[in-house]
């Protein structure tokens, strides 16, 4: 039996012992996860620096603080999330219990990505644990230091049978995908996303796919470009452009493009100083393959800013391209690098048309003082999420579901949405073995009279407080007695 299969079987056996179900156990595991983040922050930061040149201040900010907040939220809200959720009743079920009971799914497979290798594994894991599941964790092998660290740390803090870490490359991932899970949570690119879903389909396993796309960023003409460009610069060049919701390209009027380039240049200087390469705050491409992929996109384009690169260091300077059209090479795939094309559009109509001609992206950004324009952009385009007048933010609000649509993915998570996504929401109807008189309307032999009674009972719905319910129950009992007389 392969190592992967063993890990999955162990997780399933551990799940079947039911020890992941009690809320106290889930809280204890989440607290242990919290401790791991606090105690091992340095090691995590060191691994991330080796993988992506993230500096020690960036790591807590972007990877860890968000996770701690999610853990806190889960700990606080777990009793509420896991409790039965009552549903409205009809007259026919007035004396019954009608509710939805969240339950664990079973064994969840979490496949992480390499760009935020810690967060993109731990965040779904928080949801999986909170929902009472077991989880097999497969960090991306591309961010190898973080993958190795996760393999060492997680078993030290959380239950190692319920939450095993499986490391490895493509063959190991394929072997994992041959096993049967109760949910597969994948973060990554479309091509692999399709393979993951196909593999899951063989076992009828539901999936959550957090994929990518080209997130457009529309800048209206009348904007304070210094604020706008500072925000865009922050979001675009963070992690060397390797963020799934980074603004991929800008759509704006030709007349402001010059100023946009100027303002981005100013912001870059503010953020990274004069010599970008030596700035501790500027990241690197994850590896040579991605370095080559992104530098190839620059061929034949007009570089308005940046363009320098160093292969040995996987360094690509923050770059802005102008004169880009819809058919340019750089507009055919998600850039996932520090290259920002500026595409000219004459109007917001043209921008909307341009966006709608393409696959639905994971995020959409619009900068404008005109709230009507913003609302129009939201209404006439589709994307996973939208942030107006800033970038990335909708990711950080736990109350908002985060996920894609169309080619950018399916399913969503964060906060309670993680819990719900990784639970089975089971509908329950608890009746008693009395009040049979009313039920008699549905039994054969059928008659027209019975039919009219049945229509009455089934079509009415009530929304009542307890007092109202009692009053109605009394009336109902009287009615039931009447019905019983007619049909018994």
């Amino acid at each position: 039996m392969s190592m992967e299969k063993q890990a999955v079987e162990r997780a399933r056996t551990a799940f079947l012992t039911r020890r992941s179900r009690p809320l106290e156990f889930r809280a204890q595991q989440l607290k242990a996860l919290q401790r791991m983040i606090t105690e091992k922050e340095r090691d995590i930061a060191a691994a991330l620096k080796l993988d992506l040149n993230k500096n020690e201040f960036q790591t807590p900010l972007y990877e860890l603080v968000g996770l701690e907040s999610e853990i806190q939220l889960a700990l606080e809200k777990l009793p509420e999330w896991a409790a039965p959720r009552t549903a409205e009743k009809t007259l026919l079920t007035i004396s019954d219990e009608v509710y939805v009971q969240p339950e664990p799914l079973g064994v969840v497979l979490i496949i992480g990505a390499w760009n935020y290798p810690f967060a993109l594994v731990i965040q779904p894991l928080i949801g999986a644990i909170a929902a009472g599941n077991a989880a097999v964790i497969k960090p991306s092998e591309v961010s190898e230091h973080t993958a190795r660290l996760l393999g060492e740390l997680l078993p030290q803090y959380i239950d190692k049978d319920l939450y095993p870490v499986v490391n490895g490359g493509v063959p190991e991932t394929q072997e994992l995908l041959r096993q049967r899970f109760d949910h597969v949570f994948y973060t990554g690119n479309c091509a692999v996303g399709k393979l993951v879903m196909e593999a899951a389909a063989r076992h009828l396993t539901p999936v959550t796919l957090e994929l990518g796309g080209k997130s457009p960023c529309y800048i209206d003409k009348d904007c304070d470009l210094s604020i706008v460009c500072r925000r865009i610069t922050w979001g675009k060049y963070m992690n060397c452009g390797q963020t799934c919701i980074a603004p991929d390209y800008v759509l704006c009027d030709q007349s402001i493009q010059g100023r946009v380039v100027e303002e981005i240049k100013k912001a870059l200087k503010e953020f990274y100083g004069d010599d970008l390469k030596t700035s501790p705050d500027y990241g690197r491409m994850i590896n040579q393959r991605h370095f080559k992929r992104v530098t190839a996109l620059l061929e034949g384009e007009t570089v308005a800013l940046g363009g320098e690169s160093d292969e040995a260091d996987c360094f690509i300077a923050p770059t802005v391209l102008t004169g880009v059209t819809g058919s340019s090479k750089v507009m055919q795939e998600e850039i996932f690098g520090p290259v920002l094309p500026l595409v000219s559009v004459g109007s917001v109509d043209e921008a909307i048309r341009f966006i709608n001609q393409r696959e639905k992206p994971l995020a959409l950004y619009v900068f404008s003082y005109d709230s009507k324009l913003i609302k129009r952009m939201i209404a006439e385009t589709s994307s996973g999420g939208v942030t107006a007048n800033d970038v990335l933010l909708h990711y950080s609000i736990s109350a908002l579901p985060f996920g894609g649509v169309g080619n950018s993915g399916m399913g969503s998570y964060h906060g309670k949405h993680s819990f719900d996504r990784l639970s089975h929401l089971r509908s329950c109807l608890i009746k008693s073995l009395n009040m049979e008189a009313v039920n008699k309307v549905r039994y054969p032999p059928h008659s027209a009279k019975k039919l009219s009674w049945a229509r009455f009972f089934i079509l009415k719905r009530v929304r009542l407080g307890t007092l109202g319910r009692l009053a109605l129950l009394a009336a109902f009992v009287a009615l039931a007695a009447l019905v019983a007389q007619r049909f018994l």
Partner: protein
Amino acid sequence: MLPSPSSPSPARWFRTLRRTKSTEQSSKLSLSVCTELLRKSREALASGRTLREEFRLSQLEALVRMLVENEDEFVDVLHKDLHKPRFETVLSELILVKNEALFAVNNLKKWMNPEYVARSLVTSLDECFVVSEPLGVVLIIGSWSSPVQLNLVPLVGAVAAGNCVILKPSEISSHTTELLQRLIPSYLDTECYHVISGGPSDLTDLLELKFDHIFYTGSRATGQQVMQAAARSLTPVTLVLGGKNPCYVDRECDVGIAAQRIAWARFHNAGQSDVAPDFVLCHTDVQARLILALRSCLLQFYGPEPRHSASFGRLVNAELFTHVRDLVLASGKVAVGGEMDEAEKYIAPTVLTDVLESDPAMQQEIRGPVLPIMTVYSADEAINYIRRKEKPLCLYVFSSDRKVISNMMTCTSSGSFCANDSVLQSMMVMLPFGGVGASGMGSYHGRCSFNTFSHRKSCVLRNTRVECVTYLRYPPYEDRSLSLMMWASSLSRRSQAWCQIL
């Protein structure tokens, strides 16, 4: 890019020949026809009319009118397809859909409004909300056992959510499908909603096309095929799949009433239901009484000759008849019923006892008016049996002991659960209905349908004018800014957003 049409093979030629025999109005399920309908639907979608609340309301109201004005025709076709009594058609098909449509009409405004979420200190200047938008063009493939309800209830959800729809009812319930093909264009917008029909081999062709959501009710094998095809274009799916729904009868229970409820559930529509109890696990102490009670119920429901009862159905086709007949002949002993007539596709309401786990009736989904009863010696034994099998769509338990009910619920998993009755939980507008594990994924009914056919888009509208707080997040990163941020984030621990510092 469209696949090029294959050269005409004899099989394909015969299929085409068969199809041309059907009525002029029906849409022949050829790939080019479907592609054209898909294109038309996308164009209609792009026109934006389905985004308007008035449009969706008018379509839903038209659907209700269609059911009300043509009630007799629906009763007639369902009688032809399944020998369904008027009562069942009206109650479990037409009223169910009407209920869903009216519920959507009454709540559409609320559902279409953005949902604002909790704000925190810093986001108090911003608007954070979730807005529901249509997915696009939805493919709904309904099953034949309750052909009206299984096609039109998802249609209600898809229409309410603002999608365009291609509806493919089953060719097995051919009269109903033909009626839907005829009626729907007369009531609903002909650019946005299309009805097609075809056989299982045509499904493969259809699944080559790109939809924005596929809703499928039917068998596991086809469910897998649908999901695999959907994976190739990253299309989300909702699958409601059949299986064996267990029903445990405890020794602490009013056997007479339990028998009535079980008999009604199992034998309505001649047992052809995805949600009825498929088999009973009966506590040994009450088995004899249960069988007697079932016998007496059946007599009361259908009289001494169920074949002559207007309230009892027939199997939908010869293939199913053979399947059920073979199961009966190879499993246990007939305690009640057992009479069959192949020409009429009639099988009497039948109860089997002395059934073993290895019998075909306990291994395969029955889909007919046959109820196997397997003896168990305790509730725990029943639980262990259930847990050994795939997660079913529905799970039933009859007991007056709350602890037994509670235990059964916590120790098992199923799409839905009902204690002391059956089927009802699948008819309620306010309870999501769907499967889990091998019985499917996703759910629908009521608001849940609307959500299933929508994309819930998260939006944050930020203020451009207040920049000071955001300075903390920009490089260069230093110790000073980090401790400020950590302090600010400790404030955020109480709330739901860590974007304080962003």
